[in-house]
């Protein structure tokens, strides 16, 4: 995927404002070391291998893919929780990969994260008030009595009773804990939130509550989301545009409805057909594409098209030589241009 690709994404421009986040050629490799006394690098885990996309102000970009495809690493690399190996992350006109120390911390206020596991992402020894106030203290916002007011405001906004402020995480259910995590992210008035599988640990009826809350907050506070999840039905529900990732690459990027109605890449089609629809009558007639095998190891990804090893046309496939790049086949609809994967 070239660095030029996916810089403009057509039709979504009308609905949303200017570009808030621009990721170009992002690579995140983790070294694998070996040796008893001297740790020598023997290989790289290519978690994210050259991806580019833009996120507009006020929009939700969904990032889907299976475990190990690099979705979470992408989110963390954008927030500079991992320093990218290569590539640029431009947030509202500032290049984040060049920032450090206090300069980076100032931007961290504007970019927050909501984590997957509401049980391990809250400190069990801190009360709700302490959890939500800590980011305010770090960034020196809302001092004194104002902080108390801010706390009540945030708790109300995420649908928790302000009298719960003195309680500890173990006193809450999973859904309520996730609300605390959302409150913590929201407290510092961010512009951009990376939601890393925020509902996958929750039960169905609680999942719906949290999804609705995220949508309400987006409207109320003018938030921009990068929504990472493996459940395509949830991602499709909440996202304006969706990027499908496979083994560190984006294979397809389009508006949510377009991606569902007109999927082009073989992996996207398989992923969509693998998700059963909760309707027995629809399911009776639905065709399924069952992919063979497992996702290859990112330690040693296939050369050329990364989907090659699971492609149904792999016998005639000649795509081992060229690395596919994202190509705009229709305004706003980008596909990795592997010839095999693009034909049905």
């Amino acid at each position, binding site marked *: 995927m070239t660095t030029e690709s996916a810089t403009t994404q057509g039709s979504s421009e009308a609905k949303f404002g200017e570009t808030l986040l621009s990721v170009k050629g992002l690579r995140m490799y983790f070294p694998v070391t070996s040796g008893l006394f001297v740790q020598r690098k023997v290989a790289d885990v290519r978690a994210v291998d050259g991806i580019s996309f833009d996120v507009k102000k006020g929009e939700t970009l969904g990032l889907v893919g299976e475990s190990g495809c690099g979705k979470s690493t992408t989110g963390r690399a954008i927030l500079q929780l991992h320093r990218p190996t290569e590539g640029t992350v431009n947030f509202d006109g500032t290049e984040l990969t060049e920032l450090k120390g206090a300069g980076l911390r100032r931007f961290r206020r504007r970019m927050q994260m909501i984590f997957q596991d509401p049980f391990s992402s809250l400190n069990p020894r801190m009360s709700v008030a302490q959890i939500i106030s800590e980011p305010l203290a770090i960034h020196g916002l809302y001092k004194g009595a104002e902080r108390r007011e801010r706390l009540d405001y945030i708790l109300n906004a995420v649908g928790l009773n302000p009298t719960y402020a003195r309680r500890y995480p173990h006193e809450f259910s999973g859904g309520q804990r996730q609300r605390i995590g959302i409150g913590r992210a929201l407290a510092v008035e961010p512009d951009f939130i990376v939601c890393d599988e925020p509902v996958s640990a929750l*039960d*169905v009826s*609680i999942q719906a509550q949290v999804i609705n809350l995220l949508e309400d907050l987006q409207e109320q506070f003018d938030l921009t989301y990068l929504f990472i999840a493996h459940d395509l039905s949830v991602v499709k*529900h909440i996202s304006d545009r969706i990027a499908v990732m496979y083994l560190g690459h984006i294979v397809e990027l389009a508006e949510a409805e377009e991606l*569902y109605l007109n999927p082009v890449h073989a992996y996207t089609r398989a992923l*969509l057909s693998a998700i059963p629809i909760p309707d027995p009558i629809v399911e009776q007639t639905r065709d399924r594409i*069952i992919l063979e095998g497992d996702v290859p190891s990112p330690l040693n990804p296939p050369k050329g098209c990364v989907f090659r090893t699971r492609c149904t046309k792999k016998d005639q496939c000649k795509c081992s030589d060229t690395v596919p790049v994202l190509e705009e086949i229709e305004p706003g609809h980008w596909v990795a241009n592997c010839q095999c994967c693009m034909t049905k």
Partner: protein
Amino acid sequence: MARLLEVEDLQTYFFTDEGTVRAVDGVSWGIEAGETLALVGESGCGKSVTAMSILRLIPNPPGRIVGGSITFDGLDLLNVSDAEMRAIRGNRIAMIFQEPMTSLNPVLTIGQQIREAIELHLGMNEDEATQKAIELLELVGIPEAEQRIQDYPHQFSGGMRQRVMIAMALSCDPKLLIADEPTTALDVTIQAQILEIMANLCSELGTAVLVITHNLGVVARYADRVNVMYAGQIVEMGTAVDIFKNPQHAYTRGLMASVPRLDDTEHTRLATIEGQPPLLIQEINGCAFRPRCTKVSGCHCSTTKENNPKLVEVEPGHWVADCPCCMTAD
């Protein structure tokens, strides 16, 4: 003709220091030979405890089956000896667990683990059992089965391990297979592979399947009939089409409406069920769904134990807990 498995008024309680947890509180249902029944509900509603009760795997203490009966193929499972129960487990009733990572023994090869049940239940010698193990692995789609039976579980991926679990479960040609969240830990494309293999093999062998899941999509695709559980009780039972197309209980309706569907064309707000499921440590009097019912203010349901809703048949084969509030649409 009697059904393959008949569960009658089953009550499984856990006696803890904090009090008695009524994990399963009086459920009655059955499975016909060869059919697929799904047990649906949120975490803590008693799905897994029901399955464990059938196999008598409830840890005692603190758990105990305090009432009811379970009849399998004419045999009263709650009154057979431990030795008889051991001869049934893994033989005529098999189970697949949720976690393919932890339910295989890491220090035994795959071959040894599959052979164990075959040698024990079918009385084969080692060579015959090895041959059978290889056949089974080929059946569930593991390439180079002959070499791979010498591998250890850590050399298999999650999806492959779950295939091994299916091979083990089906090794003795069981009449009933209990699959407790068989694919929750797996990725979607792998999930599709595994469910397809399981469904195909079971329909070939005529095995009845009790599948426990919270994924309504999986239920819609694979189940013939569905039991919806809430707070240790069944609130609705019926065919998959009844439950999805004509849900009668407020909880079932709420559950159906709260899942985003891939084929939704317009963006609509998800319906939610406000509040949390009740704590089972408190005795539930009256309708268990009462605190979350949208009509709670106008609800005249009785709150005494004697008037707990009972299942009534609203159309042939479609049973609903007869709480008048929950049964009326909004």
